């Protein structure tokens, strides 16, 4: 694989491109883990949020508020530098990055899904209850099929933010596209100046994110979305 890159692009550029593409896989893995983990925790938080029980609602509301207002950079610093130094033992960058991105993703996804479920008219719940169904059967058979349609577009749109968010994981020493690219940009090698490397990295990120953005817009047009206003997203 590496030889192929070198054959096509020449000596410094082929190695650089190979390493960048090779490091991209860790960006993708981290995004996938964060998305799946955040989705699972987000589901639990959403469930707590719509359960209607006072304590759970309060807990989930404060969880969502807390992790939406804390910057991702601070989550990474806390889990990557703060907690290891507090406990006096090293933590693998994989674990820190996964934990902070999962927390970040879970709060956003819970908020998106809560919005989607709240967009379903109250009469749907009441209709379900009136034919003798309980909370979970109503949720599974009536609410979720409708809510999933309108939640699909913002959920896919949010995955773009996770991929962009993984670029920050390099500050705690996570070896991803950003880390390798930065190292090459700082290396005194001809042909890897920062005005070549950073656009290349931007292109790689763009090629990961752009299809997902288009997919989100496609879903939005086809299935609709619950939010009336424009999509808010973080950089």
């Amino acid at each position: 694989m590496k030889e192929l890159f070198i054959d096509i692009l020449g000596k410094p550029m082929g190695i650089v491109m190979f390493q960048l593409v090779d490091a991209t896989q860790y960006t993708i893995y981290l995004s996938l883990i964060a998305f799946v983990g955040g989705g699972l925790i987000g589901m639990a938080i959403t469930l707590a949020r719509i359960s209607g029980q006072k304590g759970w609602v309060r807990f989930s509301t404060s969880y969502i508020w807390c992790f939406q207002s804390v910057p991702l950079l601070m989550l990474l610093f806390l889990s990557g530098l703060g907690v290891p130094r507090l406990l006096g033992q090293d933590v693998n960058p994989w674990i820190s990055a996964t934990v902070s991105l999962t927390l970040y993703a879970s709060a956003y996804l819970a908020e998106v899904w809560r919005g989607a479920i709240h967009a379903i008219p109250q009469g749907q719940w009441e209709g379900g209850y009136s034919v003798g169904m309980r909370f979970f059967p109503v949720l599974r058979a009536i609410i979720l099929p409708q809510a999933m349609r309108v939640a699909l577009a913002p959920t896919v749109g949010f995955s773009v933010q996770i991929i962009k968010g993984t670029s920050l994981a390099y500050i705690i020493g996570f070896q991803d596209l950003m880390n390798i690219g930065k190292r090459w940009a700082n290396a005194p090698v001809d042909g890897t100046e920062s005005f070549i490397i950073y656009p290349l990295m931007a292109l790689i990120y763009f090629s990961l994110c752009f299809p997902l953005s288009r997919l989100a817009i496609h879903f939005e047009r086809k299935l609709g979305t619950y939010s009336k206003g424009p999509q808010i997203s973080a950089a």
Partner: protein
Amino acid sequence: MIKFSPYPLGWLKNNRFYRGGARLFDFRFFEIYRNSEYLLRLAEGIWLSISLTVTAALIGFFCAAMLALARNARIPVLAQISAAYVEFIRNTPLIVQLFFVAFGLPLLLGYQWPFWAHALLGLTLNFSAYFAEILRSGLQSIPKGQIEAAIALGLKPHVRFIKVIFPQVIASVYPSLTSQFIFLFLTTGVISEIGVEDLTHAGVFIDSRTFRSFEIFITLTLLYVAIALTFKTCMHAIDRYFFSWKVRQ
């Protein structure tokens, strides 16, 4: 099989965090707030973070208005450039853009600016794309009847825009703009990576001096949240003051 400790509550003294009377961790926030140099650094960092973000947002808003108008008016080449620019910025991480603006462009074009100017340029480019997307959807949401009525009244194009279209667009997208601005503010910590002495930079500096990482980053987190809440309150007050004519549900 469960092993019972010979001491009642023995695990309190014999766990991994509390060994033999000396706790493995304790919170030493006083190391930060008793040192006037650190407090000064934090205050300067807060000031630089806020001023850079607000300036970038204001300039970015004007650029965004241009981008959104070019795209909405379907000016042949400019509309495509605007669309491509917005898509590109929105689909790449802020940190890559900042590194390119701070290290790539000066090398390519041969100029030297102070760090904050690079950060300002990078943030402006970033903010303008996000705001442009919101403004565009606001422009699309204006009822056609408003524009037709303005034409029927014989208003000139620029008057039509300034007096009829623009106030309605701003009023309708103001809540989205506010929350977008606050989300963007929370991501501006990365400008410390290009050497700007903002709030995050102050935190990293104090961390490197005291090694109390947890305490300092908790402090930074609280400061960021507090600033974000202050922004939110100010924006809400502005909303109430300037858009008092708006019909609210």
